[in-house]
């Protein structure tokens, strides 16, 4: 979709349909055909598609819209501003940090914009294991195509790859692994490497500058700074939602909010949607699957130090990937993050730590996201008024060899590309490895799950879809088995992890779901 300049009148009308925190001076009570909770990639797509079809839509978002002047340029403050629980959310059990954004556009504001269509075998497995006969790659292609056109999804251009990403390609080439520039929802990337803190170039097509404005243009109402606290049940239907206006950053609650709607779409994210259902009287849970089956793509990373500086700051945040080992269970990516974030996993202290920091200009970081299907967890509502989830997750011992293999593969790649040394980030072994021979230790069974520094930024399956009502929360179109007019549209409906970055799939499924809702209304 081309982005034509809108007239001043059109923009004024769009502003009239947007509410920000300072605009609320009384309680809010509105009605709509559809209320969508959450403005992340899935929620924004649903809101736009419904509005484009002429339906009356209200889109609710707890966070504020950010403007480029409000982006923090370093990691710590940026996460504190844009992430729930200030970016310090952790699981119990196996301790894994995980994040969820709180801003208009959700995670799309602060992710790497990676858009990958899962291969057909991913959907085939979903279909076979979870009785989802109509969720095939072929059936979703039109939805992928439409989202791709809207967001300008395209391979990362060569001129903004930068040395970090090109070294990744070189490593794959030396070892004979396939690799490709990552497709992203970006138009005009300048290679600033600022995806995680907000794209000052306004090149990343995050939802706040793409789908949300388009939804406003088509007549949707967008209410930011609204925290939904409960769904209002009425027999086997939901009458609407209630909540409160909350101040940005402090979360201080003020005016009451009630939205009555014919259809409610929960797109609050895989960690918040089950909490809302539980807080609303354990809704949609005859299957007892709400909040269960929590899965991540545990991410492991290796830092490699090269002989010469490599202009680390320049280049797309994540510009290259390899799908060589996808069927074996992991996907390889190049990665850049603000040093403050990377430093969390830098070993040592004192002079040793400073020596590693001094190597930052020569250091590239590559990661692997792993499909650990056996490692499951739960999302539970906490007592009291808090809507923050209690997360419990266990890395299954049988999944640990996969992570070890992924780490070892990354080590191989670094040495193939000419790195002098690598930092594998594994406890109880040498923090610095100088050769492939030394890196063999990464495959040792002595490396246990708790020795690995893992991150869990892709989250799935807490309200999974399943063909049978007794085994899942929603059907293939995201409609709750138990409730007539409640839909869920976030990665919680994935029946299990998709093996690739999930945003694109979530948006394609959301588009299909929106069309089903339009057909129904």
């Amino acid at each position, binding site marked *: 979709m081309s*982005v034509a300049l*809108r*007239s*001043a009148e059109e*923009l004024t009308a769009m*502003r009239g349909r*947007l509410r*920000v925190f*300072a605009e609320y001076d009384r309680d809010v009570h509105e009605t709509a055909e559809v209320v969508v909770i959450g403005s992340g990639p899935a929620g924004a797509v649903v809101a736009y598609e419904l509005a484009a079809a002429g339906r009356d839509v209200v889109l609710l978002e707890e966070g*504020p*819209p*950010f*403007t*480029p002047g*409000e982006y923090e*340029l*370093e*990691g*710590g*403050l940026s996460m*504190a501003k844009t992430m729930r629980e*200030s970016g*310090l959310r952790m699981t119990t059990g196996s301790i894994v940090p995980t994040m969820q954004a709180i801003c208009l556009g959700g995670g799309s504001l602060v992710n790497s914009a990676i858009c990958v269509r899962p291969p057909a075998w991913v959907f085939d497995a979903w279909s076979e294991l979870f009785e989802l006969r109509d969720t095939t790659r072929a059936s979703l292609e039109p939805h992928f195509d439409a989202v791709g056109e809207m967001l300008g999804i395209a391979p990362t*251009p060569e*001129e903004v790859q930068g040395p970090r990403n090109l070294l990744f390609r070189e490593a794959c080439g030396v070892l004979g692994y396939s690799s490709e520039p990552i497709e992203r929802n970006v138009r*005009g*990337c*300048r290679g*600033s490497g600022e995806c995680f803190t907000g794209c*000052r*170039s*306004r*090149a990343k097509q995050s939802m706040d*500058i793409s789908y949300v*404005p388009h939804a*406003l243009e088509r007549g949707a109402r967008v209410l930011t700074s609204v925290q939904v606290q409960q769904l209002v049940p009425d027999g086997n239907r939901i009458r609407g939602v209630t909540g409160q206006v909350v101040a*940005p*950053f402090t*979360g201080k609650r003020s005016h009451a909010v009630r939205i009555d709607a014919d259809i409610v779409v929960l797109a609050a994210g895989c960690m918040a949607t089950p909490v809302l259902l539980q807080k609303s009287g354990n809704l949609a849970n005859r299957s007892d699957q709400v909040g269960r089956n929590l899965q991540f793509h545990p991410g492991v990373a290796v830092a490699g130090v090269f002989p010469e500086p490599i*202009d*680390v*700051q320049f280049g797309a945040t994540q510009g290259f990937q390899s799908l060589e080992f996808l069927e074996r269970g992991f996907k390889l990516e190049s990665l850049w993050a*603000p*040093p*403050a*974030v990377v*430093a*969390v996993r*830098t070993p040592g*202290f*004192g*002079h040793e*730590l*400073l*020596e590693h*920091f*001094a190597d*930052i*200009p020569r250091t590239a970081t590559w990661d692997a996201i792993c499909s650990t299907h056996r490692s499951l967890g739960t999302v539970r509502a906490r007592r009291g008024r808090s809507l923050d989830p209690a997360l419990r997750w266990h890395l299954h011992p049988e999944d640990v060899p996969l992570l070890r293999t992924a780490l070892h593969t990354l080590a191989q790649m670094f040495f193939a590309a000419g790195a002098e040394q690598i930092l594998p980030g594994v406890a109880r072994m040498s923090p610095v490895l100088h050769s492939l021979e030394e890196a063999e230790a990464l495959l040792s069974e002595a490396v246990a799950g*708790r020795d690995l520094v893992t991150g869990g930024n892709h989250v799935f399956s807490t309200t999974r879809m399943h063909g049978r009502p007794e085994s899942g929360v929603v059907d293939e179109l995201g409609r709750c088995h138990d409730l007539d007019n409640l839909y869920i549209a976030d990665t919680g409906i994935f029946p299990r992890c998709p093996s690739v970055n999930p945003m694109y799939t979530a948006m394609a499924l959301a588009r299909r779901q929106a069309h089903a809702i339009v057909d129904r209304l």
Partner: protein
Amino acid sequence: MLFAAFVVSLVVCFALGARRFLLGYPPASESRRHLAPREVALLGAATDAMFPSGGAVPVAGSDVDTPGYVDVWFGLLHPGKRLQVRLLLVLFEHATLFFWAPGPRGWRRFSSLSLQQRIEALRGWYASRSFVRRTVFTALRSVLGIAYLGHPTTMRHLQVAPYVIASPVLDADLLYPPIGRSLDEIAYTAADRTPASDGTPIDLAGPVDPRYAERPL
């Protein structure tokens, strides 16, 4: 008699506890909005030991005002997480009661130890066989590391200070006001719009963002 001894013991314990936990810290600085003096002292002492002078990065922990950064960070932190970080600081300050630092009076609070004792105390956490102790150490190192690496001076030395990037003015910028402001306070009008990014790579020889440019420590 027994009761009197009990009361006296209680008073003595209370006095010792108050002395250890609350007294003897420098007075509060008006520039710190969220941190207590004891937290400022712990952060300063731990930063000196974590990032000593004379290291491979010519910016010592004492150069970067870690407490100043953490104070701003605390202002943005989720209340529950702020409490957790506060408890982390208390734990480190007083864990010397259980894990004595080598050298004389190694049971004193962390911020009262000599630099060498603090380094050894940190080493005890870092190299501990206990997974929990190592994890707690990692948490402290993360807090200090974020502050250290987020400082403009450190970022310049490591060649990762952000460049000046002029953001294009798009339709979205005509929709959203600065956070906390009303829609009437949107900075731009339709006439201010500029072309979207054309994909020209950033200029690696260009100026650093003013917030990260050279200035006195």
